[in-house]
């Protein structure tokens, strides 16, 4: 009886909620898109990026996925646009763009 949170919403009757509001699952917050909070958007310039990865650990929202030693593009579903990564990049490969679109 693991929890499928897609079946739990603000219209669920009390009998359908999990006991003690416990959650029998992990990482379900992925389904909540904090990207909607963004007003400015970081953009990666692939040519300037040297894959030093100094940007990856400074993201408060785990929005810079790393695979095979290389960072991938931003997770715009969750990026809140704080701009910390911009300052962390020694090569000016990340710039903030006004608005919610990359």
């Amino acid at each position, binding site marked *: *009886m*693991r929890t499928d949170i897609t079946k739990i919403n*603000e219209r*669920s*009757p*009390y*009998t359908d*909620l999990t*006991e*003690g*509001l*416990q*959650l*029998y*699952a*992990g990482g379900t917050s992925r389904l909540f898109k904090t990207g909607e909070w963004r007003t400015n958007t970081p953009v990666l310039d692939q040519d300037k990026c040297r894959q030093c990865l100094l940007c990856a650990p400074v993201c408060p929202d785990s929005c810079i996925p790393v695979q095979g030693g290389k960072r991938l593009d931003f997770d715009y579903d969750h990026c809140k646009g704080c701009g910390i990564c911009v300052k962390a990049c020694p090569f000016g490969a990340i710039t903030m763009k006004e608005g919610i679109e990359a």
Partner: protein
Amino acid sequence: MSKKKENVMKSKSIPERMSGNEAVSYAIRQVNPDVMPAFPITPSTEIPQMVSTFIANGEIDTEFIPVESEHSAMSAAIGAEAAGARTMTATSSAGLALMWEELLLAASNRLPIALTLVNRTLSGPININCDHSDGMGARDTGWIQIYAENNQEAYDNYIQAFPIAEDPRVHLPIMICQDGFITSHAVENIELLEDEPVKAFVGEYEPEEFLLNPGKPVAVGPYSVSAYAMEAKKAQEAAMERAGEVILEVAERFAQMSGRSYGFFEEYRTEDAEYLMVIMGSAAGTAKAAVDILREEGHKVGVLKLRVFRPFPEKEIAEAIKRSGCKAVAIMDRCESYNGCSGPLGSEIPAGLYRNKVMVDTVNYIYGLAGRDFTVDHVREIFAELKEVAQGEKEAPNHKYIGLRE
């Protein structure tokens, strides 16, 4: 898993004599819970001491946590229970008061922790003796509460605690209460049960979901927006309602094992009684002894001894009072509510009578606060006054104090 249908291993009775604290500790030894965090406070201190001695002598292998306060005792109990361990603790008075916030969390997180409460008055003034203000102060925290008349009932109730609390229909914490010093420190006769049947009766604790379930993460204790919080509270309340039937099922199985039967309350010589006394805890014994004497003198009196206070068996109490056909009921509170009109039972029982359309005179008495002794003579006086009230010779006093200097 409800063990309702299983056949129960019968147990021989072992006649012994011991104090209420010894009796509960003996039951804890038989159950051998996984974890016990506790902090000493009179008069429950002996329980963690005795359990520690069992552990020190290798009689049980419970993990004892010598926490630095009762607040941490209940906090650690919540952590241990959520992690999948059968967990219990013991406390009294200010210790329970310090746990207060955590009591609500144990219940709302639906954790079947067992707490053995040795009832002692709450300060102030500071006093170590018995009344029910500690247990009554926690009556709306979502815990099941069962009260005992003597060491025997404290022992029997404790053995039934885990099967009640851990039942999937319930999953609520449970408080097993007995009167401080009066039963906790008094040596009396008792019929103990054999270890094996008790272990079989209580069974292994096998939660379905818990923090330490490998590969199956669980999250406990969320922030909840209003859209979910009210539903969660209703679900918790529904579990408390279901606890009633489970308490009776477990009592039935317990009777099969021990030959001793329990219900929500005991009706003592209530059939044909003209006057009833509703009372809880050790003083119920004194009331029964008085009833025997008064019956011999030709007075038709009886006692309704409340055992299960949460869930509150409102309907059943009203029906029992109706059944007796009595003229008036003395409702005895070993606790003051400071509401200017009644103690806790003095509020809840008349409300139940009214809701169930049982119209009978009631008088609420406050007795035994902070260890004030309650005697056979007091019971005699109360029944005499009850009779005057019922016969219209006297107006019902407003939650009158017994044994008070005026």
